[in-house]
């Protein structure tokens, strides 16, 4: 059986094609059209795996763009897909922290990867990838550079939860010649605090697995571990967990 999982997120779109033991994955910026992004993901996967569209049994689509994408055999929420993906990558996982572009969520799962409960951030961007992206711009760097530039020994507490106010706060800190590394560590701490409190609400049972695009940032992982006083595991290919889960759910149909 051949299945494809497509996860159209607010910032990045991810795709995973499963052909027996073989797995192909790809990632692209979503841009303004989630539909086009999904199409591109599919054509890239078909090209790289040398598999034709007609050979695929099921295409499962998740992420905020799931509704606008016409080619899905089924759409499933990110929550169920992450649970399924993590259960495959790390069967001991009981808590998933997923931080993407516009959402952060905590999912509690059982030994079978079934969702027991979940919590999501409210309408605001605090504790999401978007928050970090805006701050990286203010600091004149790429979001991917943040982790390597942080200095946890000089962590400055960022008080504003609101992205717009936090930006002003940082501009103020920079004006006072506060070290950039300390500010970045403070930003990671801010995201960590926000998401850790959601995780504690759900019980934060071990093992705790961190997924989504922001899981690539080692600074946020460090901050989460400090806040939760537990080890937080980042599986390889953390960004593809949702797409992988979607492809695996295709096998269950």
């Amino acid at each position, binding site marked *: 059986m051949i299945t494809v999982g497509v996860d159209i997120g607010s910032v990045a779109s991810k795709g995973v094609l499963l052909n027996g033991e073989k797995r192909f994955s790809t990632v692209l910026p979503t841009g303004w059209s989630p539909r086009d992004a999904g199409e591109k993901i599919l054509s890239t996967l078909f090209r790289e795996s040398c598999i034709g569209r007609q050979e695929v049994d099921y295409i499962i689509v998740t992420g905020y763009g799931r509704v606008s994408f016409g080619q899905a055999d089924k759409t499933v929420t*990110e929550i169920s897909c992450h649970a399924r993906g993590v259960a495959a990558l790390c069967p001991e996982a009981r808590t998933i922290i997923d931080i993407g572009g516009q959402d952060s969520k905590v999912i509690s799962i059982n030994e079978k990867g079934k969702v027991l409960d979940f919590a999501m951030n409210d309408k605001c961007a605090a504790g999401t990838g978007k928050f970090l992206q805006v701050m990286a711009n203010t600091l004149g760097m790429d979001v991917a550079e943040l982790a390597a530039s942080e200095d946890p020994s000089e962590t400055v507490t960022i008080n504003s939860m609101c992205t717009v106010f936090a930006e002003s706060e940082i501009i103020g800190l920079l004006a006072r010649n506060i070290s950039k590394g300390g500010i970045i560590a403070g930003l990671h701490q801010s995201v960590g605090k926000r998401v850790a409190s959601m995780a504690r609400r759900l019980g934060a049972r071990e093992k705790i697995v961190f997924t989504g695009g922001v899981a690539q940032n080692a600074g946020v992982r460090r901050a989460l571990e400090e806040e939760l006083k537990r080890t937080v595991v980042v599986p390889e290919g953390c960004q593809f967990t949702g797409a992988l889960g979607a492809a695996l759910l295709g096998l269950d149909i």
Partner: protein
Amino acid sequence: MENNTVEQFMDIRAATVAKMLEEKERGMKVVGIYCTFCPQELVLAAGAIPVGLCGTREEPIPAAEEVLPRNLCPLIKSSYGFAVTDTCPFFNFSDLIVGETTCDGKKKMFEIMQELKPVHVMQLPHHHKAGASLDLWIDEIKSLKTKIEEEFQLEIKDEDIWKAVDLVNQEKKALKEISDLNRNSPPPMSGLELLTVVWSGGFSFDKKELVQMLEELKKTLESREVDPKSAKKPRILLTGCPVGLGSEKVVRLVDELGATVVAMENCTGYKTLELMADRSKDDPIVALAEKYLNIPCSCMSPNPYRMELLGRMIDDFNAEAVIDLTWQACHTYNIESHEVEKVVKDKGLPFLHLESDYSSSDEESLKVRIEAMLEMIEK
């Protein structure tokens, strides 16, 4: 043919506006109320028409925010907004407004509303047990009676109150019987239909007519042919803040996502349907006071009857998940969600707490949450 019966309820509001226009000229009095705590039996006993004024729409909120804080519950903002912009015919018709101190936001809003109309505010105690709270509430109901008598220059006789008690009890009974039809699988009514019936009924001009309509609707629904496939739809119990047409987005989204809101434990739904004034009391005022003080609103502390009612409703309606909807800045329902969660999780069911307002800005994010909750239901 049968659809007409639920649709009839959608026309109640407009029909009442037309009738009131006529009857007001003949001296008919209208009393605007904002809460199920207002003993409408007194209004009926005075020969006046009680009408609910709670705002359920987004449109007048910007006007309300010129006076009220933005970070306030949308129901209070919408209610005040309709009043201040004079866009609600029922507010316009009201000869007297009755408010009550259910929450901090409402009680302070009523102070400001006095600039627009005569508002009588009932001081609601926040404890449901007999004793000082009941004594206070009896006094408050007596004051309301005096106020209505003075305002409309008449005397409310005990026998008229008892007649009104019978009528309101009949209405509750009829509404409960309709609501209970959704215990069946498949449920004969969608969530939106249920909401349409119970919410629109509150605008009826004549309760006797309403009771008759409800009884007829019950017959129609009992013989309604429901697609057996809809028995597979997840059965959702909705609780939390009041919902009406205009603020029905969660009910609609649940329907759209392939599930059914089979019951609503909120003040526009099932919350007050079991509460009836005790006919065996000597004093109708005491009977009313006891009835109303038992309403399990989150403004009561503690509020055990709500948890008991929810537990029973989960069983009676075979709910497979519970959504607790809190309107932004409604602290009592927001905090009480913690207790509700325990009741639901003890039953082993998925629980979803949503915080929202009347705008459509968060519909996509609400959808993800509701969909994920539906995916959690084991079939």
